[in-house]
């Protein structure tokens, strides 16, 4: 009887444990099912490489190349901001900050990681965009540059804390060996610690990138929203996430426009999936290399 009850609990937990898998598969099915009409109608190649996105014209045109390029531009720009600052902060915390500084700075950075994206978007819209418009003499402050800057600032805490974790896994003996060879702290840091933590750091960067690609509210508010192929950083763009968020409200359920927005969601999902899998593979190898289990 007792054993029977135990088995019931065990099976119950086992079933519930599959919830995440269930939802993940559910998301894939929903995205595919809803996206297929537009992929069938427009053709996958025309959809992905089509240069014009005019969903409300008649006949409508669904070419998502401008949106995909916008996402990549903005993400690349964000990386230029957050990789040096995030890694620099992580290295500072790891190598230079004393225990007292660390005890304050680490929670502060963690706290900042929790600021909602809508607050960043709002800040970008009311403070940064007007400032950049004046300072750089642009026709509008809502540009790919502004979006990159804000997204980059947003991603700093994520990259900093993940990279700091990776640095802290490097065994102390590596450092001691390097000091024993007569290297100073900077040489040890750049030639021993950073290479040893390399894959952990790259995981941090990839996860930061994945977040930046999928970020919605910030780019919706500050990227400007023009669905054209970007030429310079100082003009409005319309990344994939903000297209979905801005247009889903008007798209009629079951219409080609609705299907096209789900197809964009599918592309977005696949991009972040690839990022996450790559990060997973790298971090697994890294743990093996440093002799950490799991």
């Amino acid at each position, binding site marked *: 009887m*007792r054993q029977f*009850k135990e088995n019931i609990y065990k099976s*119950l*937990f*086992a079933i*519930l*444990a599959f*919830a*995440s*898998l269930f*939802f*993940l598969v*559910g*998301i894939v099915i*929903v995205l595919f099912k*809803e996206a297929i009409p537009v992929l069938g109608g427009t053709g996958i190649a025309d959809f992905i490489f089509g240069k014009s996105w005019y969903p409300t014209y008649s006949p409508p045109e669904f070419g998502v190349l401008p949106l995909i390029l916008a996402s990549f531009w903005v993400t690349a720009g964000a990386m230029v901001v957050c990789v040096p600052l995030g890694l*620099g*902060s992580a*290295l*500072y*915390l790891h190598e*230079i900050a004393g225990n007292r500084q660390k005890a304050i*700075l680490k*929670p502060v*950075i*963690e*706290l900042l990681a*929790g*600021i*909602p994206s*809508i*607050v960043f978007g*709002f*800040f970008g819209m009311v403070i940064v965009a007007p400032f950049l418009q004046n300072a750089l003499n642009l026709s509008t402050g809502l540009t790919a540059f502004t979006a990159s800057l804000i997204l980059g*600032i947003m991603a*700093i*805490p994520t990259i900093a804390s993940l990279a700091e974790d990776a640095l802290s896994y490097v065994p102390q003996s590596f450092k001691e060996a390097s000091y024993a*060879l*007569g*290297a*100073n702290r*900077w*040489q040890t840091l*750049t030639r021993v610690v950073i290479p040893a933590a390399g894959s952990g750091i790259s995981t941090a960067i990839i996860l930061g990138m994945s977040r930046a690609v*999928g970020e*919605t*509210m910030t780019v919706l508010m500050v990227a400007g929203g023009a669905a054209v192929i970007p030429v310079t950083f100082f003009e409005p763009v319309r990344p994939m996430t903000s297209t*979905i*968020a801005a247009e*889903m*409200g008007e798209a009629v*359920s079951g219409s080609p426009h609705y299907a096209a927005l*789900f197809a964009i*969601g599918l592309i*977005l*999902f696949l991009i*972040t*999936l690839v990022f*996450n899998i790559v990060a*997973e593979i790298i971090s697994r190898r890294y743990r093996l290399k440093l002799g950490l289990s799991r």
Partner: protein
Amino acid sequence: MLENTVQMATIFSRRNSLRSRIMQNVGFTLLFLSILITVIFLGSIIYFIGINGIGVMSWEFLTAAPRKAMTAGGVGPAIVGTFYLTIGAILFSLPLGLACAIYLSEYSPRSIAVNIIRLSINNLAGVPSVVFGLFGLFVFVDYFHFGVSILSGSLTLGILILPGIISSSQEAIIAIPQSLREASLALGATQWQTIRKTVLPAALPGILTGVILSIGRAAGETAPILFTAATFYSRGYPTSVFSETMVLPYHIYALMTEGTHPEKQTAIAYGCALTLLILVLLISALAIIIRQRQRNKML
């Protein structure tokens, strides 16, 4: 290997001259600058929103409903809506996430199934929030006919925070020393009794930290509720789980992009942003404090 080591040692000693010391100073200065810039950037966000938002803060702002086409009155319904959605999300994802964490850390045989579950948790955590919104729109709003409602929004947000709840609970449970479990089993308790009476109470602070952090995340998310729960204006407070609701983060967005009085609306948006910021920062600070105390206790 040895040759290599000797070579490195020679290089280091030869270079450990003035030049390498200058390099070190320059490098350390750059690192200091990067954390300084980071703190300044993020601090300035809090500063600007603080000084501009404090002006509209009042008891009326926090509790009253909006008046005169969003140009006066307060954001009470939006705060209440945020509260409902967050509670709903936790009610959905905590039991599910906890069960999953218990299975993975207490029962899990090292099998392919467990690896698949782990992989799917990691990948679910990386799905963009707007994609959760699409999923919620299709499944809850349309397929189950819940409509744009608190229920649909809560479920969507619940799935969004599920991976976070699972991994933080799992970490908390794994941190419990094996000896506690063995002592309980040695006294004749079954595995379920051990989990319920020994492991879970000991892991509670850790689980709580994860839950609180997830509350903070759910309260600030906007994209998943755009098409599943949020509305710009409702006359009063939501009356059932099937009514749509005003929500703080969405309200900020709507004030900035809709309506006809941008000047007055921006002032109210500042107030909303400050309210949300304080709410989320307090929630995260609470979680960090609980964890810190727990760590000190364990050391």
